[in-house]
């Protein structure tokens, strides 16, 4: 275990030029807590994430300038000194590029009808049998969460679940299906480096490649998926169809779905399919591809988005309008806040807490980081948590092979399953549940989701300690 003084020193390499009084650090800690609380109660205060983080970014920059903790001056880019506002280099533009590019790419590709085609094909493959349907929808949720993003995956699978269960006359299973799918989005979100934002942030900070991330995370994802669906079948009493007549009727009902209904052009459908496969392949091999490795995953995502947009060259603005600007604005503002917190020594202060946890020993420390990250991300956004912890771990000089990176990844993702506000995709699941006039309160969600979340977190602790450590 590294000595505490060394850890503290290493958490703030950019602010070594000046001492920050503890009172100022505490003021900024209060600001950070205020932002986290506001994000946790985003729905209650009727304010979007980007605005909340934006307000705190403005306040932090003003206060930070007033108390002289911000290092103003030129920035060195490629050996050249460039004058740039302090909040510009504070933002991790690589992460923003990945999110912007992949959102655009997925949005345009979904117009090809590819994802609805896959979803309907799987529905037909289930023959309308509820248990088989839950298994297939569960697997689809995981794969879509891994390839797309958790929210889009939940939107696709959740909306199809509503339509197909209604068609099959099995509305009584809606709550169980939607809840299990919501929980599985956060499992699928663990599969690849680009499956969720915490993965991108932590993976980029740790220097974990796409392929390494995939082969280290996938065994856990497989086991957790099987356990979650099996529990869903049992706890929500998803019954098999009673006889051949019921099976025949259900099969006929799902056969009436037309998977080609959403395909406007066969050519664009196959182009979208090819590009999706190619996108995954190029992202997976970015670190070894000549030229591309220098440009990074953000370039790959933006490049593929631009190619797909050629199909809609005269109306690309519709896709720009459809972008989640709230999310992008939130990231930008959040990076600014975290940067100021770093200069105010707040991250160093949190680092003492983390150092205490790590100080409990490799096993207990790693486990505690994972559990506390889960607990923290269950009540607020997991992105600030991931950004903060990865910054602290990076400043500590933690090697990419250290299991604590994985504790942050697993904790930040799985904590979202403890409460309905823990992740955007579970919030979408709850929104769909309420859309179908099903009763599910905050406490009701926690009670129903707790067995799944606890088992998933326990499995993750075991996996990180026994396999990844």
């Amino acid at each position, binding site marked *: 275990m590294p000595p505490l003084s060394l850890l503290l020193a290493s958490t703030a390499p950019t602010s070594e030029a000046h001492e920050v009084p503890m009172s100022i650090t505490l003021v900024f800690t209060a600001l950070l807590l205020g932002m986290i609380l506001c994000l946790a109660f985003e729905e209650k205060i009727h304010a979007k994430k980007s605005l909340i983080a934006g307000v705190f970014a403005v306040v932090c920059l003003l206060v930070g300038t007033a108390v002289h903790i911000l290092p103003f001056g030129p920035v060195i880019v490629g050996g050249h000194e460039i004058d740039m506002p302090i909040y510009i280099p504070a933002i991790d533009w690589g992460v923003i590029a990945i999110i912007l590019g992949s959102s655009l790419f997925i949005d345009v590709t979904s117009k090809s009808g590819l994802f609805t085609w896959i979803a309907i094909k799987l529905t037909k493959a289930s023959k309308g049998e509820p248990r088989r349907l839950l298994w297939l929808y569960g697997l689809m949720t995981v794969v879509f969460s891994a390839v797309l993003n958790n929210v889009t995956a939940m939107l696709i699978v959740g909306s199809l679940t509503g339509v197909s269960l209604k068609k099959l006359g099995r509305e009584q299973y809606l709550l169980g299906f939607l809840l299990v799918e919501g929980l599985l989005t956060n499992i699928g979100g663990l599969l690849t480096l680009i499956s969720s934002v915490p993965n991108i942030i932590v993976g980029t900070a740790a220097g974990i490649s796409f392929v390494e991330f995939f082969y280290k995370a996938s065994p856990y994802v497989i086991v957790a998926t099987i356990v979650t669906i099996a529990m869903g079948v049992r706890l929500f009493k998803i019954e098999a169809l009673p006889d051949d007549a019921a099976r025949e009727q259900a099969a*006929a009902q799902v056969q009436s779905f037309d998977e080609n209904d959403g395909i406007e052009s066969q050519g664009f459908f196959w182009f979208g399919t090819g590009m999706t496969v190619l996108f995954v392949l190029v992202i997976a091999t970015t670190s070894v591809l000549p030229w591309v490795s220098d440009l990074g995953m953000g370039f790959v995502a933006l490049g593929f988005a631009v190619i797909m947009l050629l199909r809609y060259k005269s109306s690309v603005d519709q896709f720009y309008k459809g972008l989640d600007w709230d999310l992008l604005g939130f990231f930008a503002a959040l990076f600014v806040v975290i940067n100021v917190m770093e200069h105010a020594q707040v991250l160093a202060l949190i680092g003492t807490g983390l150092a205490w946890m790590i100080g409990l020993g490799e096993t207990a420390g790693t486990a505690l980081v994972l559990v506390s990250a889960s607990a923290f991300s269950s009540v607020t956004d997991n992105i600030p948590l991931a950004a903060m912890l990865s910054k602290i771990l990076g400043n500590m000089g933690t090697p990419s092979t250290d299991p604590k990176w994985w504790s942050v990844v697993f904790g930040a993702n799985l904590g979202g399953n403890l409460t309905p506000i823990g992740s955007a995709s579970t919030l*979408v699941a709850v*929104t769909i549940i309420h859309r179908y006039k099903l009763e599910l309160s905050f406490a009701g969600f926690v009670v129903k989701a707790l067995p799944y979340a606890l088992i998933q977190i326990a499995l993750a602790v075991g996996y990180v300690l026994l396999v990844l450590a």
Partner: protein
Amino acid sequence: MSTLDHFESAFRSASKDTFTWAPPHIRKILVITDLDAEASAQFQASLEQFLASALASVPGGAATPQWRLVKGDDYALISELHRLVEDWAPDLVCTYRNLHSSAWALEFSLGEFVDVLTQATPVPILIAPHPKRADAAPHALRDTDVVMAMTDHLTGSQRLINFAAAMTQAKGKLWLTHVEDELAYARIMQTISKIPQIETDLARKLIREKLLQQPTDYVEACRAVIIPQRPGLDVRPLIVMGHHLSTYRQLVRDHRVDLLVMDTKDEDQLAMHGMAYPIAVEIRDIPLLLL
């Protein structure tokens, strides 16, 4: 949450209505007239000839159905006629408009007997052109080579389509017709044009396309089911927007229809469903089957 709505709409659109083949069993046919014995027998004979080919090709139907003739002097009151129908429980009633009334020469009603029969009994009523009128279409009551099922809501109208398919003779042409109300559409579009949040031109195009696409898809589903059961039948879609009455008249005239099949029952009202009554009143030159 617009993205959720986007995917839900895509899946709802992909969820197509299915058609189940359930042809009617026509074993007992009741012929009602207000004529004397000889004229009544003549009327029944023309009906037997008219329906012979169709009844012979109905799967599961009786090759030679049982016919019963009720003449003018067998009943005097509506209640008596109603009881007669209920007691014998036919699968099909054949008659004509304005029974026991001189109003047949005018063009303003079906007459009280037919009015009540169509609504008070679940039995389909075939209304032939009046035997005394000379303006029946030249092809009327000859055969059922061209049958048209017509409605303003074709999707899910399984009974209507099954009856129409059953009444079409072998190798005949079955038109599955859906007339979308142009006036109702225009009214909705006028409202949409006053809502700034909805792009009017796009809404006009997409709503029109979807309104016509749904019945078109349903006809495809029907065709896929009917053809294996009735090989040789020519099942065609006729999906249009129009002003109901004039459009119906025009379509019937354009396609030389031998039998027009319509739904008349409406769970929400005692009177005939939607446009069925005015159409039944106005289209007098060909037989109509009112379900």
